């Protein structure tokens, strides 16, 4: 393991200003963005220095709230408690904390704060002058809605937390800060509503995050892969979102959110299987419309996974199950195709995935060209050249498009689709049913942070199904998800009498 830089948590400041400055300069000797400005106070006796990294701070705040007051304030700070005097009588900043060790100082400087050193004091002051630029609030690309809030998180955890607080104006909202990553010291917030979240779950989550031993955390997924219970499972046991309204809704259901600095993606847990089929705007649209969408997503999941597999199984093993006219039509259209159904199907699936991935990453100006290539070449030329057959193309295209309806199950759908095709080509519908049974058993056996993954569809009654296969009107959504300790969401009319 490459050695870290020296551990400065046991290195303390001295009362000599020059020595303290020398320590900082030594640490940042290869960093030309470090700025040190020495300031003499008005009493002409005491000297201080402000240290910051250029580009990380807000110059106006620094100049107006720190430098000007220091230069112009006619305050006698005395011999002892200089830092406290300066902090309380001179400075105009909203947040000033003491930094006793060099490690504290470094953490502050590297996060955009300014360090104030005073001659004759072995304690530094960390001043809130953060001014690094962020992307600003914009609608998340992957979670667009037709109706509802359009704000999305950005890369600054503090601002994200602020956006969340605007949604939940309650002191019940807790945000515990942790730093993760030996070199990155990334700030991570664990957010939850104290009266709703499971304390044991919060405790275990904190423990897991604190145990993470990694160089740096750049995204939520780094943490997700460390903390989730079934690490090698395709099925997600932690939810992700870039929308503050979604995080707020999940916190109100008793879940926990993990905000990581440097990424707009927020983790929420526990995560249930039925959430894969929920759309963010289900709760903003009329419940009829939302219910149709929900139901459609379940159907699309089944189609996405099974359409090519069932087609391969029927044309290879179970020709008697095809209606006669359809069987003849398929036979006619497949005539002359040199590949077996399996190879043809896998070929089309991979081409579809290539087109999909290319569409995601390529420049927008080439989008038209790609759609023409995809449509004409794959759709028409390949069929006419009898490299692939039209029915297979339809089955794979249907499967591919259905898969796009459920973006949260992207990876699962792909692997399951390929596995289903392989198994169907070997064992027909029997193999397909066996694979689906194993998948269902797997889904039933997963837990997400102590909560049954299929808790919301455990019983076929209204209480369980009201927010799964359909979305009930809000007046019927009086209870939270069944795993929550505080299940009653709304006051019953009887209680008011």
């Amino acid at each position: 393991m490459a050695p870290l830089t020296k551990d400065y948590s046991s290195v303390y400041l001295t009362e000599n200003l020059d020595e303290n400055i020398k320590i900082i300069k030594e640490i940042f000797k290869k960093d030309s963005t470090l700025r040190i400005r020495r300031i003499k106070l008005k009493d002409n006796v005491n000297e201080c220095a402000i240290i910051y990294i250029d580009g990380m701070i807000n110059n106006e705040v620094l100049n107006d709230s720190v430098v000007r007051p220091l230069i112009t304030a006619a305050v006698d700070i005395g011999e002892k408690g200089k830092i406290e005097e300066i902090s309380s009588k001179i400075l105009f900043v909203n947040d000033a904390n003491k930094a006793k060790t060099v490690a504290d100082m470094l953490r502050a400087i590297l996060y955009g704060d300014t360090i104030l050193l005073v001659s004759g004091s072995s304690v530094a002051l960390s001043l809130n002058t953060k001014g690094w630029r962020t992307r600003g609030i914009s609608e998340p690309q992957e979670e667009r809605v037709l109706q509802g809030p359009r704000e999305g998180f950005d890369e600054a955890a503090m601002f994200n937390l602020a956006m969340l607080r605007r949604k939940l104006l309650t002191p019940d909202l807790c945000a515990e800060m942790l730093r993760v990553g030996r070199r990155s010291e990334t700030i991570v917030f664990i957010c939850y509503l104290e009266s709703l979240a499971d304390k044991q779950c919060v405790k275990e989550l904190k423990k897991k995050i604190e145990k993470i031993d990694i160089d740096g955390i750049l995204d939520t997924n780094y943490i997700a892969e460390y903390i989730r219970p079934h690490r090698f499972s395709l099925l997600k046991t932690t939810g992700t979102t870039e929308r503050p309204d979604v995080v707020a809704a999940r916190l109100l259901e008793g879940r926990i959110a993990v905000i990581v600095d440097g990424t707009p993606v927020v983790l929420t847990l526990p995560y249930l299987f039925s959430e894969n089929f929920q759309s963010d705007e289900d709760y903003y649209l009329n419940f009829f419309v939302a219910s149709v969408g929900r139901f459609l997503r379940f159907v699309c999941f089944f189609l996405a996974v099974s359409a090519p597999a069932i087609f391969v199984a029927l044309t290879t093993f179970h020709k008697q199950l095809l209606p006669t006219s359809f069987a003849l039509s398929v036979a006619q259209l497949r005539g002359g195709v040199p590949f077996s159904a399996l190879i043809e199907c896998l070929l089309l699936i991979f081409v579809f995935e290539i087109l999909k991935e290319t569409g995601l990453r390529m420049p927008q100006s080439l989008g038209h060209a790609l759609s023409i290539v995809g449509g004409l070449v794959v759709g028409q030329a390949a069929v006419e050249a009898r490299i692939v057959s039209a029915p297979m193309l339809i089955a794979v295209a249907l499967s591919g498009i259905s898969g796009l309806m459920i973006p949260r199950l992207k990876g699962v759908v792909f692997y399951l689709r390929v596995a289903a095709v392989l198994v169907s080509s070997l064992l027909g519908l029997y193999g397909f049913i066996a694979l689906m049974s194993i998948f269902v058993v797997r889904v039933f056996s997963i837990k997400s942070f102590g909560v049954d993954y299929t808790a919301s569809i455990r019983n076929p009654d209204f209480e369980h199904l009201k927010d799964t296969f359909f979305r009930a009107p809000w007046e019927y959504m009086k209870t939270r998800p069944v795993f929550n300790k505080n299940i009653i969401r709304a006051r019953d009319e009887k209680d008011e009498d």
Partner: protein
Amino acid sequence: MKAKTNYSLHIAFLTAVFTLSNAIITLPFNSADDKTFLGFILAFFISLAANVFIVSFLNKRDFSNKIFFKFLYCALILLVLFEVLRSFALFVKFASEIILPSVSAFIIGAVFLLCVIYTFLKHNSVILKFSLFSFLIVAILIIIFFILSSKEYRAENIFLLSFPDISELVSQIYYCLIGIFLPLPIVFLWQKGEIGEVNKKASIIGFCLGGIFLALPLLNTLLLFGAEVSGELSFPYASAISTVTVGYLFSRMDGFSYFIYFACVLVKITVLLGTIKTLIKHIKS
């Protein structure tokens, strides 16, 4: 207030699926005649009475460490093992003749065994949830097939031609009891071992549900083919479903029914293995 996990419904459906299991593949049996349906009904009620008694008995008793009971458990293990092998062999035979005639029975059996082992290694709540999931689908399919076949039914196929002879009736009851209802107490034993007690209400309701959803395929086959033809066929219900036509010419619905057989037998064998595990545990203790 946290919602408690209540598995009563799941237990009922597990019992129903267990009742359906192999019976749905072979019902009616080779000895079918016009008394078959009456024999089935009578066998059902006899079995219901017996099961109510067995459930009460199991709830009052606990597993014992005495030598005599250990021998009894050994005998039960052998019986359950026999039932496992019988069910497994029947399902593999069915699958290799009807579902996948072009693939060797070994592969079919091996794949099924893998599925059974995978399910068996999971917690008992998983099999309960899977039973609920399976039963809902199986029930819907059975009802759909029953309705779709209705235009071809001939009511006279289930009329009793004469007042049944006692011996004829007894033989029909015997076949139904042995072939369908006899292994059922194993489910109650499984519940006792895995959950700690036998949920009487859920078990009896499940048994009744299983009986009803077994009567439907039986009626389906009898009304369509008659007792004589049904008795000649190896797998009457599968043959009956293969004749269902929806629309012009041939529109075969068999494919949908494969899940019925697979799920029912999977649940049954998993429960049987679970019972063996429980009995072994009590022999060792």
